[in-house]
Every structure is written in structure tokens, then in C-alpha cells.
């Protein structure tokens, strides 16, 4: 079965439009645990608690406030938030091409793959190849899950990757971090240069692995063999997202329903 995307649409520039699907390029390696009740192994739920009333707060009594000064808030409704959200879009429009080396890695946020959809294979391959030969990256604006991202589209091993980038005002200015400039002694510089040269290798990320994760997974594997797992009483059905096209079409229909209200 074909990989299901989290988004599908087209990537385009000038007169070219190529149908693609977006899939995430990294599986987070973090091992996550659920919180259970020690008495009956029920999955615990998070509830909002009002310290003033010493009581749980039902969802319809929860609103949003932006703290402008201690204990002073400006209220914000769902509708107001939505009014500033970008319109959903089904295109990744490349606005300019840049040299790949120009993008400072500090801007990199999350990597995805763009997979070619039916009918776009040839144009996709052509774009991958030309971008590889010219060593260029496409810069594009792209709306995903109610946010507009600046993204870099690059060519990698015969496929297109898409990396969401941080906006420049999200980057903490380094003025506060770097120490004041002083003079550099030639002798010291030589020594450090030498150490760096001695330690220089080709980049080979496969050499490194998350050791704690490995140990943790081994420990889990051993425990599974030793003892049967505990069973949670409320084994609720899992929530899958469903076919990407159907989800997208329903989201679009829902947007119209909300607009007309």
C-alpha cells in the first residue's frame, strides 16, 4: 500500500505544478510512557483544576487569555484566533531558488519528504535532478494545520525533502550570547586548529545511536518476556486519522460549514 500522507496537493513554480504528498521524514526516537492508575491500571486523563474553587473545570468554562502584565489578561475567542489563521491551501508555491549552503542550520525546524503522486512522476524526477545538479533549494510558503510556514524544498537521494524553517524573529539574537571580541594569539589559534584537524572525520551519523533509548528498549523487551502486561479496563478503540484525501475533503467541507455559520 502507498504511504499515506499528512497532506496532499501540488508543488509549483512558474508554469510547473507537480502533485505530491507530504510525509514526515523523522520518527521521534523518544520512548514515551502513559500514566496509569496504580490500583486498576486505568489510563489517567488530564483535567483542568481551578485552584480558587478547588474544583475541576468543565471544558465549556475554559477560555483563553494573553497575559499582558502579572494577573492582567486580554481574552481571545476561537473565532478571533481563526480570523487571523491563514486560508488552507493545496499548493506549495516556490517563490525563489537559493543556494543550498546559504540556509543557516539554526533555521531548520522539521524535515518531511514530498512523495510524487499519480501522474506527476516524470515532472517530479526532472525537478529532483535539476535541483541536485544546480545545488539549489526552493524557498516556499506553505500552510499546514492552520499555520503558514516558510519552507525549504531540497533534493536528496532522488527525492524532494521539505524542511519547515523558523521565521527570523523566532531566532534568539546571538548578541547576548557571544562574548566580547578580543585579540587572538597566533600560537593559541595554531594549537586549536591542529586539534580540530586531528579530530576531523567524514560526517557519518550512523556511528552514533541514542544509548539510553537502546538500553530502555532492551529492558522493555526483557520485561515483556518475563511477565504478562497489565490490562487497562477501558481498552478504548484507537483513533486513526483515516485516508488523507478523505480527511482533507472533510476538513474543507467543515471549513465551509463554519464559514456559513
Amino acid at each position, binding site marked *: 500500500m502507498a504511504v499515506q500522507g499528512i497532506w496532499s496537493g501540488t508543488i509549483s513554480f512558474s508554469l510547473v505544478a507537480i502533485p505530491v504528498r507530504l510525509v514526515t521524514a523523522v520518527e521521534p526516537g523518544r520512548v514515551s510512557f502513559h500514566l496509569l492508575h496504580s490500583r486498576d491500571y486505568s489510563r489517567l486523563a488530564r483535567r483542568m483544576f481551578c485552584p480558587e474553587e478547588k474544583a475541576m473545570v*468543565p*471544558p*465549556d468554562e475554559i477560555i483563553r487569555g494573553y497575559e499582558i502584565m502579572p494577573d492582567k489578561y486580554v481574552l481571545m475567542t476561537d473565532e478571533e484566533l481563526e480570523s487571523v489563521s491563514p486560508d488552507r491551501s493545496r499548493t506549495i508555491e516556490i517563490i525563489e531558488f537559493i543556494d543550498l549552503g546559504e540556509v543557516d542550520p539554526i533555521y531548520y525546524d522539521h524535515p518531511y519528504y514530498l512523495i510524487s503522486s499519480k501522474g506527476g512522476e516524470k515532472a517530479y524526477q526532472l525537478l529532483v535532478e535539476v535541483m541536485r545538479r544546480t545545488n539549489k533549494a526552493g524557498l516556499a510558503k506553505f500552510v499546514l494545520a492552520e499555520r503558514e510556514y516558510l519552507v525549504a524544498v531540497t533534493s536528496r537521494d532522488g527525492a524532494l525533502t521539505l524542511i519547515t524553517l523558523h521565521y527570523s524573529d523566532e531566532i534568539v539574537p546571538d548578541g547576548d550570547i557571544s562574548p566580547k571580541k578580543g585579540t587572538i594569539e597566533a600560537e593559541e589559534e595554531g594549537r586549536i586548529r591542529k586539534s580540530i584537524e586531528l579530530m576531523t572525520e567524514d560526517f557519518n551519523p550512523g556511528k552514533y545511536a541514542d544509548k539510553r533509548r537502546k538500553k530502555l528498549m532492551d529492558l522493555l523487551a526483557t520485561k515483556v518476556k518475563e511477565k504478562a502486561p497489565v490490562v487497562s479496563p*477501558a481498552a*478504548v*478503540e484507537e*483513533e*486513526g*486519522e*483515516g*485516508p488523507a*484525501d*478523505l*480527511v*482533507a*475533503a*472533510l*476538513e*474543507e*467541507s*467543515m471549513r*465551509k*460549514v*463554519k464559514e*456559513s455559520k
Partner: protein
Amino acid sequence: MEGRRLPLSNLEKDLYPSYGFTKAQILEYYRRIGPLILPHLKDRAVTLKRYPEGVEKDFFFEKRCPEHRPAWVQTAEVPQDHAEPMTVCLVNDLETLIWVENLASVELHIPLAKAGSPGTPDSMVFDLDPGDEAGIPECVRVALILRDLLSGMGLASYVKTSGKKGLHVYVPLNRKETTFEDTKTFSKVVAGVMQKHYPDLVTARMAKKERDAKVFINWSQNDSSKTMVSVYSLRAGEKPFVSCPLEWRELEYPSGSGDPAWLRITHSAALIRAEERGDFFQEVLMKEQGLPHL
């Protein structure tokens, strides 16, 4: 009836004791609603929900057609996992309807597929079930959003009361290509999208504790092993309410919405509506629609 002898029993027995509604009245209701309900029951494996001692006492579900049935009752053989096929009643004519009602089958439940094509649902259903702190107004709101959402997908839908607290929204399919896998996938994604956009109003999860003030969209009824209460069936309860079709505009009309009895339609109201408006729920049996994006 029709030259068939049908002995009726215990006609004076009051099956809704706190309201006062005898078995004779139940038989009379089903006789009069017969022309409307029969097309919906036709060729389906009817499950009888029987209340021999009245609606306030014990009931039992009868899926198997009783052995002591008259020779003229039509039946079907339904294949079962790990067992011999089961003989079920087909309520295809008025005589059979009266015979099953004489067994105090207050409620009639039917699968979404016909007995001859058990893997092919004729419709997709959303069973809207309000939690303890939610009521008809919340349920109506969810139903209207659902109607508009489906309409945006090019799908017409029809609504009936559950006869209890909820509403049932039906999407007619009537295509042999559509499977329960399709309707289940589609309805589950719809319920998920509804929950995502209206998290305070809707839940797509079965767990009772998550319902509270929300409306549970039960998509899992889209299964060959599940049954839904038939349209026009009576419901067991304090009064003889009916699972009755509604026109969408009745839900948009807010005048009755403050009244807890709003949208609770009794046997007599159902008969009047049937006489005045006919069966506008028959579209569910006829309209052909395909589920997009599967």
C-alpha cells in the same frame, strides 16, 4: 387476515403501565403504520426486542425466528461465524408484523444490510447519543453540523428520532459496491473531524465517562453484526414514543427547543404525521449515493 388465521393473546395487558397502553393498542399502532414500516423491514433479519411483562420489566432480544412460527412466515438463513446458519424472521407482510407484535416485540431492530447481501450496507448511519448532561438541543446542533458537513461532501442525509434521547442520521447508499469497511472508515473519519472541530460538543469515543455534556457520535454501528432500531418502531420507555423521521427544517426551527418534550414523538403523533406527510424516509431506501475519497 388475508385468509390467514392469526390467534392474538393477552390483548388487554398494559405494556406501558405508567402511561396506559395495552397490547391491543400496540397491535393497532403497528397495523396502521404497517404500510410505512414494512418497506424498511423488508428482507432484513429482524431482531425482536420482546417485553412480555411490559416495558418496565425484563426484556430479551430474539434474533432467531421462534420455532412455533406459522408456516407462512418468511425466513432467511443467516451465516454465522463458527456455527450453523441461523434462521431469522423476515417481516415482509402485515400478517407477519402483527404476529411478531403479538409476541410483545415492542421494538424492532434491523441490520443496515438485507439478509441476502449481509456484507452490503444500504445506508451509513450516525447514531447521535447525548451524554447525561447533554440534551436534545446539543444533539440537534450536532445533527445540523453533520448534515452540512456531509452535504459539502455531496451526500444527502436523513434524520429520525431515536425515540429515546438521541437522533439517527442516515446516508442512503443503495449501491452493491459499498462495504461495511467503507462505511466504517468513512463514518469514523467524519466523527473524528466533528470531534476535532467541536471538542466541547462532540465525542467520537465510546467511553461513557467522556460523554457527560457531549454528544457521542456512534459510528461503530456501521457493522454487519450491529442492528439499529427500525424507523417507525415503538420504543420501550415511560411513554410509547416512536423512532420517527423528521424533516431537517423541523430541527432548524427553534421554537420548541426549550421544551424537554420537543422532538419526542408519540405513537399518535407519529400516525398523524404519517397520514399528513407520507413516508419521506423512504428516500433512505431508494437514493443511490457513493462515498467519495475512499
